[in-house]
């Protein structure tokens, strides 16, 4: 199908973007890889479209002051290359290959994915697990929201219609952090059925820092706090990882029944994926942390 008619704006400054958003029934066009699809289906019929692709200050990805700053026009693709952000860069580039296909990644953006809040999307769970800070710019200026408070449910965030997600700041991970990402999908081209994100550090055999996130395991992206507590201060051995993984499935996940996956199955699968992600992170930490 073809989209319904809309008014098109292509502003060049943040101020003009915010002014255009104030008009109501307006959608932001960044990569458009989900929005245009929905417009083609006519499930979304905005009266106005604000194309932000000509706003020069929205480009750029830089690491400094302990954070990776991601602006609205940073495409998924940018993370395929080495972005020189240490373990965080390694994590993001292992995640990004799970997002759609190269031509989609050439257009789609990380911030667009966060704002769209698809339940099976990887970036929202990465942002939540790592405690990213998100800037929302609107008529009254810019407010900052922690990723964990940003996502309200499937396709739902606390962003107001007149606000733009103008920057995400992902904290850089400790230099000796190990990272792991494991995703399960029914076919190669499917959305994630479930995925687990792990980052941790090990000192003298004991886990002394950890971040754990779950994709598509609840109504919104999950930071697995209970499982993190089960890991902190414990030896990085098989017993700890398996026990914490079970906690993630039983306490942190809150899955909905699906036609091909009962809630019980999903809790079990979360446990398996979390264990594998943790094992990968411990191995990765060993590879980078030897002798420190």
């Amino acid at each position, binding site marked *: *199908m*073809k*989209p*319904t*008619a*809309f*008014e*098109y704006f*292509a502003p060049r400054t943040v101020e003009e973007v915010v002014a255009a958003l104030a008009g109501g029934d307006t959608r932001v*066009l960044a990569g*458009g*890889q989900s929005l*245009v*699809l929905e*417009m*083609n*289906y006519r499930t979304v019929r905005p009266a106005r*479209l604000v*194309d932000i*692709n000509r706003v020069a200050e929205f480009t750029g990805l830089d690491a400094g002051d302990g954070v990776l700053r991601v602006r609205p026009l940073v495409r998924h693709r940018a993370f395929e290359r080495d972005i020189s952000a240490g373990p965080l860069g390694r994590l993001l580039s292992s995640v990004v*290959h799970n997002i759609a*296909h*190269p*031509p*989609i990644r*050439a*257009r789609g953006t990380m911030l667009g994915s966060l704002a769209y809040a698809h339940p099976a999307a990887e970036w929202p769970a990465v942002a939540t697990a790592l405690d990213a800070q998100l800037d929302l710019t609107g008529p009254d200026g810019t407010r900052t929201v922690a990723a964990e408070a940003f996502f309200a449910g499937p396709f739902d965030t606390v962003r107001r219609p007149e606000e733009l997600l103008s920057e995400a700041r992902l904290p850089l991970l400790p230099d000796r952090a190990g990272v792991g990402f494991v995703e399960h999908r029914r076919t*190669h*081209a499917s959305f994630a059925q479930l995925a687990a994100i792990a980052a941790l550090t090990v000192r003298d055999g004991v886990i002394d820092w950890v971040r754990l996130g779950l994709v598509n395991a609840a109504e919104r992206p999950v930071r697995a706090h209970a499982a993190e507590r089960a890991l902190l201060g414990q030896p990085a051995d098989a017993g700890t990882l398996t026990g914490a993984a079970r906690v993630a499935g039983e306490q942190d996940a809150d899955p909905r029944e699906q036609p091909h996956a009962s809630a019980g199955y999903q809790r079990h699968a979360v446990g398996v994926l979390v264990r594998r992600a943790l094992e990968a992170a411990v191995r990765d930490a060993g590879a980078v942390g030897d002798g420190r």
Partner: protein
Amino acid sequence: MRVTLTVNGERRELEVEARRTLADALRENCRLTGTHLACEHGVCGACTVLVDGEAVRSCLMFAVQCDGREVRTVEGLAGADGTPHPLQEAFSAEHALQCGFCTPGFLMLAAGALQEDPSIADDPDRLRELLTSNLCRCTGYESIRRAVTRAAGELAGGAS
């Protein structure tokens, strides 16, 4: 809205509605029907073209977004004298098409990738990842993979 873009090296001024996708602008306004449309929601890749050298789904971009930009379609692959592009030669030699519907998309997907980094053909994992972007329902993937590898060799050999 008035849009000026360069298609296969030729400057075009189009008068389009904002809702007109790049794919429809190419097919309907420019009468370049080599770009095929199937799913119109970004899954099949039949409509893949190059925008400023990068392979994109032309069904998921509006023509107005391409104002001032350079678009290359399958019609722009062959030389001015009609000599097929090495990718086209290789697709023919390796029998990388049956019904041909997906072919323009695969050609542009591969053209964009080889233009950016010819070494992708030497890396089986990256090449496979690239080729999963598009669908071929005659299931000619293996011959498509061989064709892209062959074309990469030809291109590296100095042919154009």
